[in-house]
């Protein structure tokens, strides 16, 4: 919570002042009590009010003072608001190395189920597209409201071929780059890859272009170091992930880099990105809430105080 006019927070000093004033007033009231010799007879007959009920009106009053003082300072709260028509493109690596099973059950399966979770997490207003790439980006689906279409794309993924990260990113950029930067609805790219770029354009250049277009590329480096796969020819080749390049891509484009070593990691990352990518943090002024609650507290304090004693607390 932040305050637009923090200088008014000085009004919070009213709270201890009011408390002190009340204490002084009560002490002065003793001097003006009526002398009555039969108080000893009267005292046991008085209805007993529990001490917290006696103090309640004052406590409510002080709370209302605090709320109104905070309202004076115009508090702002940061809330996550869904972005209008945000577009997200899921760029998924389906090269042969994705068949490795260091991530249970296989890297590809983990990516698939994580992407499906992402579809559930992302706000309804967002549009999701998909790009699947190996030697080149072969499945390109423009951002759409239709979740089932993207799900079909995800289901149809199969792993084979090399890794042309740069080309895939360029294709994804193309999908969302429509119209001038200022008026375009916000967009983001989610890249999941498990290895070095083997062919195609240099992804870092594409990342720089993405930055100019104000489209962040969030990257997930999937896989563990000692992973291997078997080629059709029977050779065992290692397929370690390439986190440095991924980090660079993310940094250059203004996105975030993640590393995932098992299916849960992937799922978690996608989940958090789902709500973040398509919504933005907005500062809302919540002055009215504070003012209204302050007013209600004051009314409650007055009502309780009048019932208990003849004066406002």
């Amino acid at each position: 919570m932040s305050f637009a006019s923090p200088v008014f927070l000085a009004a919070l000093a009213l709270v201890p002042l009011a408390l002190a004033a009340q204490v002084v007033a009560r002490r002065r009231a003793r001097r003006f009590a009526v002398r009555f010799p039969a108080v000893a007879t009267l005292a046991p007959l008085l209805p007993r009010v529990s001490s917290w009920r006696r103090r309640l009106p004052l406590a409510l009053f002080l709370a209302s003072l605090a709320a109104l003082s905070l309202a004076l300072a115009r508090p702002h709260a940061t809330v996550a608001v869904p972005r209008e028509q945000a577009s997200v493109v899921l760029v998924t690596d389906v090269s042969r190395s994705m068949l490795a099973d260091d991530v249970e059950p296989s890297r590809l399966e983990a990516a698939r189920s994580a992407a499906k979770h992402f579809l559930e997490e992302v706000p309804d207003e967002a549009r999701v597209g998909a790009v699947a790439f190996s030697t080149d980006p072969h499945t390109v689906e423009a951002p759409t409201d239709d979740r089932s279409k993207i799900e079909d794309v995800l289901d149809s993924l199969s792993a084979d071929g090399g890794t042309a990260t740069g080309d895939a990113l360029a294709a994804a950029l193309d999908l969302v780059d429509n119209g001038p930067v200022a008026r375009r609805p916000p967009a983001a790219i989610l890249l999941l890859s498990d290895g070095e770029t083997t062919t195609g354009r240099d992804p870092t250049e594409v990342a720089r272009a993405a930055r100019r277009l104000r489209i962040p590329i969030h990257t997930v480096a999937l896989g563990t170091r000692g992973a291997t796969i078997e080629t059709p020819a029977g050779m065992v080749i290692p397929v370690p992930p390439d986190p440095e390049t991924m980090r660079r891509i993310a940094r250059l484009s203004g996105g975030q880099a993640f590393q995932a070593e098992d299916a849960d990691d992937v799922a978690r990352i996608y989940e958090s990105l789902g709500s973040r990518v398509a919504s933005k943090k907005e500062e809302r002024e919540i002055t009215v809430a504070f003012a209204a609650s302050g007013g209600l507290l004051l009314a409650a304090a007055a009502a309780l105080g009048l019932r208990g004693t003849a004066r406002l607390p």
Partner: protein
Amino acid sequence: MSTAAASGATALRPPAGRQGPGPVPGALVEALDLAFVRRVGGVSAGEHRGAGVGSGTELAQLRPYQPGDDVRQIDASATARTGIPHVRQHVPERLLTTWLAVDVSPSMAFGTADRLKSDVADGVADVLGAIAVRRGGRVGLLTFGGPATRLLPPRGGRGARIGLRRALAEGVAPDGAGGEPLSLALVRAGRLARPRSLVVVVSDFAGLTDWARPLAALCARHTVMAVEVYDPRERELPAVGRLAMVDPETGERVEVDTADRRLRERFARAVSEERKVVAAALRRAGAEHVALSTAGEWARELGRRLA
């Protein structure tokens, strides 16, 4: 002559709002005079001269002669009329000593009607003092309930009345400065008073009823009259809204909503219970009980009750 131990800050003070006793009709004094004599005189058959008992001049009654009567008292005209010897019985003159025990505790400085309770107490003491010094009687004063106890040994004549007035003009104890309770004062009076005196206790009889036993002891040897002074608002709360009240003697502070009718009724019931207990204790001890209010004419009420 008087033993007073008054120290600066806790001395007796004339209470704020003091009104004075108010007008006392002269006829009242005369009426009370006779009433008192009848009470304290105690004519009984065959009474001989005791210590300090003399033959007065006032005729109490004429009765047939009985052996042992003073023959000088035979009334000629009555004997001639009826043929049976009659003797005059005079009101025996006794050197009557009256002790006034006056309450000067802080609760006496309270009054919401015409005057304070202490004003009524002063008036009662003044009237009784006037009566007491008639026919050579004497009056003494002891005050209780304040930080300083005042004691005026019995004296006769105008000097006694002046001394009384001066002692009572000192006032009552200030708030919070309580003192000797009634029970101890009665014990002291029992020690000071010579047998067969009249002891008049003027107080509001508030607080514990622990004075019942000393009072009974006192009544056994003297004639005791208890004058209870009260204020009508002590018996019944007025409906004046919320009040903060403080007890003058203990300083206890309460907040009271007098608009609550049930509270007022409960208070009135509780007070009347207390007063009944006090009246019963006084009756059991054998003291005569007169209750005077600060509203209206206390003098008339006193005369009505005693005459």
